């Protein structure tokens, strides 16, 4: 894997590497701000942060076509920002402001903007993503729909109804299964039997599984998978083995601190990419992103509440 990605990165320009780094860092700093400020009462409800998984959203969504569609889940901030969503509008949505993505009605888990839809009911989005993909196909548009699911959502029956229909009717949908090996507090070995890959294969849906936090590897697999979906107008699956560094929502992590420190050391997508950048590239990006996040937060904070 590392040989492969080294040669990948040789062909990737410094500008592109910097872009990928910036995209992931924006998500990281956004989420850190959300977690940090939550206890100070800036936000309503709850939140699910994407810290540790940034390479998935950025790797998958960076090269989609403008009319492609994203169907996201409860852990949606990373997907939304990688899709191109506005950071201030996302802060504002979490703060319940009228400038929020959905005017404060949806909150963290219920976002809609352009071709991005998210909902916080696990698995329930999978038939909807499939129907969206079918509608695009029936309307003779060569759009790809990307449906994000977590490992925990594999416990929901409607997911399998959707895999069956997606395959049966050749829906141009890419299922991106982010397997962070945990659902809230329950490790996958306590709630998931059998193999994830075989679940897709059983329905005749070709899949690729990766176990990496290297955004370049994820990106090249995603580009390939998305173009297959588009070319064949039929479903594919991309299984991303990944790790959540933060709590499930806020301060509800029951894992050992040691375990998380180890993950941060070995599977941090941001430090992995940092090694490929020139050291003097990094600082300006850090400053730029810190500044963007700070300003987005402040603007959202002074935005009006809905009436």
């Amino acid at each position, binding site marked *: 894997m590392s040989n492969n990605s080294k040669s990948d990165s040789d062909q990737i320009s410094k500008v592109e590497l910097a872009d990928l780094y910036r995209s992931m860092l924006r998500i990281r700093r956004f989420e850190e701000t959300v977690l940090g400020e939550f206890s100070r009462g800036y936000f309503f409800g709850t939140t699910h942060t994407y810290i540790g998984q940034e390479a998935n959203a950025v790797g998958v969504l960076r090269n989609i076509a403008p009319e492609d569609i994203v169907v996201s889940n409860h852990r949606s901030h990373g997907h939304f920002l990688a899709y191109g969503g506005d950071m201030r509008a996302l802060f504002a949505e979490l703060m319940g402001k009228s400038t929020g993505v959905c005017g404060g009605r949806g909150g963290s888990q219920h976002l809609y903007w352009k071709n991005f839809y998210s909902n916080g*009911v696990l698995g329930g989005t999978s038939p909807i993503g499939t*129907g969206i993909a079918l509608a695009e196909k*029936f309307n003779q548009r060569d759009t790809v729909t990307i449906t994000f699911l977590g490992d925990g959502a594999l416990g929901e029956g409607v997911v399998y109804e959707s895999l069956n229909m997606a395959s049966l009717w050749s829906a141009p949908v890419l299922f991106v299964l982010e397997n962070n090996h945990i659902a809230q507090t329950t490790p996958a070995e306590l709630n998931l039997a059998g193999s994830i890959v075989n679940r897709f294969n059983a329905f005749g849906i070709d899949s690729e599984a990766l176990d990496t936090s290297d955004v370049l590897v994820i990106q090249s697999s995603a580009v390939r998978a998305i173009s297959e979906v588009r070319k064949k107008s039929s479903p594919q699956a991309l299984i991303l083995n990944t790790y959540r560094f933060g709590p499930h929502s806020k301060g509800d992590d029951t894992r050992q601190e040691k375990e998380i420190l180890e993950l941060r050391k070995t599977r941090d997508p941001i430090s992995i990419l940092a090694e490929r950048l020139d050291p003097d590239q990094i600082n300006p990006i850090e400053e730029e992103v810190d500044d963007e996040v700070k300003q987005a937060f402040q603007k959202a904070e002074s935005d009006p509440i809905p009436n």
Partner: protein
Amino acid sequence: MQTVLESLNQALHTALASDERVYVLGEDILDPYGGAFKVTRGLSTAFPDRTMTTPISEAGIFGVATGMALRGLRPVVEIMFGDFITLIADQVINHAAKFRYMYNEQLSVPVVMRVPMGGRRGYGPTHSQTLEKIFLGIPGIRILAPCSLKDPGKLLLHAILHDDDPVLFIENKILYSRPVLSHEEDNDFKITTSDSQNQSDYAPAFHLSIREAPSPSLTIATYGYMVDLCRQAVLQLAYEDEIFIDLVVLTQLSPFNIEPIINSVHRTHHLLVVEEGTCTLGWGAEVLARSVENLGKEIYKAARVASLDVAIPASGPLESAVLPDIDDIIQAAKKMV
């Protein structure tokens, strides 16, 4: 004379013919079978590309249809038996019904789900229920219940082509074989249509009273197939007991508009609510609550006729004992006036 089934079937044909965005999905709906109750007969022959037979995945089908509706199509889903609406509750309540509001009015979900409900066919506890009460009052969906009056197909057609929000279209199974009664052809009843004040409500409410009868002393409010039973009860009460009734028929159950009922009870001061669903915490309970809130002491008496609060047995005599019939309506009315 056209049956309710023919009227609905024709509406589906018209919808598919007049708008390419219309798709019909359901289990076993292809010809020559044409659906468990034949409402979709002929569609797959006339519109093979837009009539989709589906796996037995009620939640999945409705979710797929919701996704299609989000991207500009106008899908219609047939659920084989309304009892299975339980399997779709999450897709309706936490998805389709929520999207317009929670995405801040930036989109809409024009999907119609047709749901055959009701008993009197001996299908037993899990294939005979009237379950729409589970969904009544959920914001973000419209629940329509056609009856044999006027044109049930027209109501369906309007829902498919023009309603931009999710619609549950409740079809009582006994209604399918009943003739559609036009207002003009009705020899017994004078029928007037009361349109709602609310612009977005297109489903009419009807007032029925016996032609040339003295002014009514009781209001009966009902919907669906119970309308047919109520008509017979109203005739019998008039000719045998000289009790005259204003029959108010709703075709939209949710969002709920009490107006037509209030307008009638304002004059009769007596209200009997008739429904096929179970009595406890049902549609009738809400009708009575709203009426009392609106009319207070102007209501002298109020009562409900509904199913007993038990499962619906398969055996004919047992089923009859559980479901409300003409005699139950007559007895209840006699006790009131």
